[in-house]
């Protein structure tokens, strides 16, 4: 993998035994190596989750298809959702946070380096435990062995009566275990940002990246913990015969929904705020202007974080809440659109009047802006509770949140990969391949997820392994599936580019983008200690100050 070359990226390092290298990576407490481990682990699961998605899309390519059985299909969507959220998106944003927060605030490492290692490994083992269910579990009556209750695992489908065997327990325990790691990493990020900033870096002078990671970590603390609590309750139900979600004994299925979405909604922002962070670093550098309205960007991030805890029940407009509750969650959800809109406007204003360079990172950011805008607008549609009564749990919702997660978060992540790849590996990526990746993935993304809205509008529910012909869904499903193969090709090029470039790419130098944050002031890849001497900063753009001594910020 890419890691090896990065590990021995220093040219003068003597050749070492594989065992020695492996031992280095297993025992490391270095935030950069752990960050890379997070990222590589996430890419591995991205490919696995992508294969699961492809299996589902092949099954749905025509009505009444028999590519897989309903049992397998149900396992696929459960594992796809769980994997992509918990074992791709979360680790990857943690990976970037781990790698770059200390570098950007001028620190030598995270606040708790050993806890950092522990958090990574326990998250990783949690993923392995979940995937062990394919060989070790058994599920719903007559079904296979991986969890098949959906990624939000609504009660009472998870009760012993409906989910015999251990497949649901694999789901619960896998997430519980990896949740410990998430909470550990969040604690670590907060302590790092608050306690290890280099001299002169007041909170008002931190890069937005650090600010947004701070907010993200706070959300993790307050959002993953309720999920952990709910998982403990579910385990008590399943192992000790408690009745939290046992509807036969007076337990409430709706309570699980509330608990899950108190986690589930802030979780979206846990993932998207780091994407905001990437975009907020890349757009200014490639537009050659500072971020427009730094204070209001910080304020908008914090208020998104705050609002995200008030909107969870918009996932539950159809469960029969009274009209006042529905109205409340409708307006709280619409209000999220305000700070999000501010951000989009501020990014455009950053580009406005600049001199934009269209490097691959910037291309992904521009696509991010467009797609995140659409995702936000379909979000507004879904926040209108009556509209949601028609759209909820349909393919429209599936298209909407994939627009957020793929069109927003993943595009932001790809931008981040290309932007920081020279820093992480010391080498430049192959520009032509990166453009191929961008255009193929863009086309595939739009083929898949634009057209996925339509069957939803036409009444196609999600999570069905097959459908009847003649409902007007057929042609759209065909197009959607075709798009998947474009995306797959893009991902293959991406992974290939990373592997090839980290071994054979041109040397990038310390600062290939003429950027302004502290990570570009040290070597590429950074030495273990990050900075020989800890820096002192006077403004939000320390490297600008150095590059323009006559005109500092």
């Amino acid at each position, binding site marked *: 993998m890419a890691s090896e070359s990065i590990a021995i990226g220093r040219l003068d390092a003597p050749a070492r035994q594989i065992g020695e290298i492996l031992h280095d990576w297993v025992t490391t407490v270095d935030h950069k190596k752990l960050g890379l481990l997070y990222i590589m682990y996430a890419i591995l699961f991205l490919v696995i989750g992508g294969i699961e998605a492809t299996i589902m899309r092949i099954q749905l390519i025509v009505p009444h298809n028999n590519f897989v059985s309903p049992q397998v299909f149900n396992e696929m969507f459960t594992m796809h959702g769980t994997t992509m959220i918990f074992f791709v998106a979360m680790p990857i944003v943690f990976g970037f946070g781990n790698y770059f927060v200390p570098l950007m605030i001028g620190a030598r490492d995270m606040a708790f380096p050993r806890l950092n290692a522990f958090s990574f490994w326990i998250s990783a083992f949690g993923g392995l435990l979940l995937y062990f269910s394919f060989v070790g579990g058994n599920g719903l009556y007559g079904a296979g062995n991986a969890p098949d209750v959906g990624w939000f695992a609504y009660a009472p489908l998870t009760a012993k009566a409906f989910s015999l065997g251990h497949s649901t327990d694999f789901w619960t325990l896998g997430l519980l275990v990896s949740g410990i790691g998430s909470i550990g990493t969040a604690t670590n990020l907060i302590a790092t940002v608050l306690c290890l900033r280099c001299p002169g870096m007041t909170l008002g002078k931190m890069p937005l990246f650090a600010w947004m990671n701070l907010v993200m970590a706070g959300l993790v603390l307050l*959002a993953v913990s309720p999920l952990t609590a709910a998982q403990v309750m579910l385990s008590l139900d399943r192992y*000790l015969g408690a009745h939290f979600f046992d509807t036969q004994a*007076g337990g409430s299925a709706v309570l699980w929904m509330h608990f899950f979405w108190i986690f589930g909604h802030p979780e979206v922002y846990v993932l998207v705020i780091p994407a905001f962070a990437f975009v907020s670093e890349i757009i200014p550098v490639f537009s050659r202007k500072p971020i427009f309205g730094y204070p209001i960007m910080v304020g908008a991030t914090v208020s998104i974080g705050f609002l995200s805890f008030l909107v969870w029940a918009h996932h539950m407009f159809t469960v029969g809440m009274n009209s006042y509750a529905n109205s409340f969650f409708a307006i709280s959800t619409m209000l999220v659109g305000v700070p999000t809109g501010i951000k989009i406007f501020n990014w455009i204003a950053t580009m406005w009047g600049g001199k934009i360079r269209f490097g691959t990172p910037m291309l992904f950011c521009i696509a991010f802006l467009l797609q995140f805008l659409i995702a936000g607008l379909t979000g507004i549609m879904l926040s209108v509770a009556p509209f949601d009564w028609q759209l909820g749990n349909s393919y429209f919702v599936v298209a909407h949140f994939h627009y957020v997660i793929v069109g927003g978060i993943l595009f932001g992540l790809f931008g981040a990969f290309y932007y920081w790849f020279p820093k992480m590996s010391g080498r430049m990526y192959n520009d032509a391949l990166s453009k191929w990746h961008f255009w193929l993935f863009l086309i595939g993304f739009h083929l898949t997820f634009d057209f996925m809205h339509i069957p939803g509008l036409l009444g196609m529910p999600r999570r069905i392994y097959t459908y009847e012909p003649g409902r007007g869904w057929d042609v759209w499903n065909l197009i959607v599936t075709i798009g998947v193969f474009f995306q797959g090709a893009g991902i293959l090029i991406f992974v290939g580019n990373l592997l090839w470039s980290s071994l054979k790419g041109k040397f990038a130098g310390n600062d290939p983008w003429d950027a302004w944050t502290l990570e570009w002031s040290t070597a590429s890849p950074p030495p273990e200690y990050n900075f020989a001497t800890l*820096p002192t900063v006077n403004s939000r753009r320390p490297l600008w100050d150095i590059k323009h001594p006559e005109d500092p910020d």
Partner: protein
Amino acid sequence: MSSTSLPSPSAEMQWVLPSRGRVGMFCLIAAETAIFTIFVIAYIFYLGKSVSGPTPKDVLELPIFASICLLSSSLTIHMAVKSLRNAKVGAFGLWWLLTLVLGGIFLGETGREWYHLIYDKGLTISTNLFGTTYYSLVGLHAFHVTVGLLMISVAMLLTVFGKVKPEHHERADVFSLYWHFVDSIWIVVFTVVYIIGR
């Protein structure tokens, strides 16, 4: 035609940041608070929703003595940390031991209450919703007390063997935050379970 490294910190610059130990502990406390909140919400949500008996009124008694012990242990641990900060290791050991004993009494009392409920009143976690929520909420708290007591015991052992030095007062201080948190959570649990719920 010049180039330069980043400026180095100047000596006169005062640069003060919060302690990472305290920040870390506050983060842990925030996460734990969220977990307890969920359990408390579940407890309140299921009040009076059990389909069969026994009810809280039938079986619960106010654990006044245990509560006094636990809450006063907050004071003793505070005194212990203060002693250590003032380099009085002996006094630290005594206050620390007292904390351990008070916490131990609380845990013992909880155990006695559970024994009584299970064997005399026939209430288990699977009896009804009251049993489910009662044992999980009180049990979650008891689990935190147990973890705290284990940590206190380890520190006690180190004290006995003379390994604890005044320079460790910051660690003791960070741990005491956890203990204060466990105590204040008990006030919430007590109010919800024994006052509102009964």
